């Protein structure tokens, strides 16, 4: 067994798991965070996408031990009890998801993109979603939602420098 401590959505969580446990299984089965989905389990579909130290990763292809001591952000960390994340709101407004299975992964890839590049082109968005498969909605409404959030963000006044 390996003991793993991960900072999940801002809270340190610890579990003791067999060494072959993936980060995805750690999140779902030990921490009851079932937002990240088990799809293909080999990195093709992106349904398991979470952010580790600010970067999108396939949690099915990362061992829990590799995430030890790192910051992990999952879909459960986006919304607060009061409010959805702007990306979630935009997806809801535009009907960007139908069955929703791919949604948590798509949203984490979109968040990783906007964190690094607040003003992405359509091609940037397409590239950022290249590792996420959607088999029912299609991608157009997702791209529109992400563009909408990026624009809304760009329209906001720049924060005053300290």
């Amino acid at each position, binding site marked *: 067994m390996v003991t793993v401590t991960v900072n999940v959505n801002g809270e340190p969580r610890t579990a003791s798991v067999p060494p072959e446990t993936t980060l995805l299984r750690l999140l779902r089965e030990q921490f009851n965070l079932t937002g990240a989905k088990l799809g293909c389990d*080999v990195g093709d579909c992106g349904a398991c996408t979470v952010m580790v130290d600010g*970067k999108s990763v396939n949690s099915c292809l990362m061992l829990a031990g590799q995430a030890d001591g790192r910051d992990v952000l999952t879909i459960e960390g986006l919304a607060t009890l009061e409010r959805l994340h702007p990306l979630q709101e935009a997806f809801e407004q535009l009907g960007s998801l139908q069955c929703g299975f791919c949604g948590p992964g798509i949203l984490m890839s979109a968040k990783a993109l906007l964190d690094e590049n607040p003003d992405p082109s359509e091609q940037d968005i397409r590239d950022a979603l290249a590792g996420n498969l959607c088999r029912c909605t299609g991608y157009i409404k997702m791209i529109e939602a992400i563009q909408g959030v990026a624009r809304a963000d760009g329209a906001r006044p720049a924060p005053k420098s300290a």
Partner: protein
Amino acid sequence: MKSFTNANPRDVAHAVALSAQAHGANRSVSFAGGGSDLLALVKDRIVAPDVIVNLKTVKGLDQVAAAPGGLTVGALVTLDALDRHPVVRRDHAALAEAAGSVATPQIRNVGTIGGNICQRPWCWYYRNGFPCLKNGGNTCFSANGENQFHAIFGGGPSYIVHPSDTAPALVALDATFRVVGPAGERMVPAAEFFILPRDDAKRENVLAPDEILASVHVPAARRGTRSTYHKILDREAWTHAVVSAAIVLELEGGVCRLARIVLGGVAPVPWRVPEAERVLVGQRITPELAAQAGEAAVSGARPLAKNGYKVPLTRNLVRRTLVELAARA
């Protein structure tokens, strides 16, 4: 998934020692960089290591060091970091473009340059567990089977294509690999690192069981040098090259002084085409000359039953890439 134990080395020498120790105890070993390819192979029961030596714990191998003689890229540098590195983008564009063309953002954020170079083949017979040459059997099922994506150069007895995007770029950039093993370290030119199936069908490179690819040295770009990597996919994202070309040109007053053209997706190793390079040296690169070089590039092609389309694809890719690269300011 089969159970295994993790070994966390302090440094490269320790990683080698842990591997040798496990082999000594008759246990199978795999090295993991980012671990993406390895974990998928383990899940699919293509490889079954008893011990995984986790190279991520080795300090200092995740750095790109720029010096007047060139760049030293630690094997644990991620493909994403390489794609974004300002010096790599400016001086060795073929490498940045190749790294940025790999798989998906999620894979590039974790996948390393060392792992990309050393990844196993993506032949569907191998990955689906057929008892083929790569899986310890005595047959290459692609030879007379579904060989749409297989080799048109250098095939036999196995017809895999080398799947790495960065490997052709590194051969074109004349890189050298630092390999560390039980007997110490050795420097291997990228062009000599990869081996053809006719020399050993079980593996794709010269690494012995306890050896590690520790870093990659890319010599400083000479004056007038430019490079690029073009990749043709059968869909827009998330797949390996059907055909790719890494090209380095050294131009002086518009005349080509040196050309290195290395193809990906068409051979079991990154495939250099000196026939095409010879067409260019001492000449101005016009569209007509580029077309001649494209013809020369495929002069040695030996397509299988279902991959003949790769021949015109390769010819045109070399032509187009040369025209585009020669026109770059």
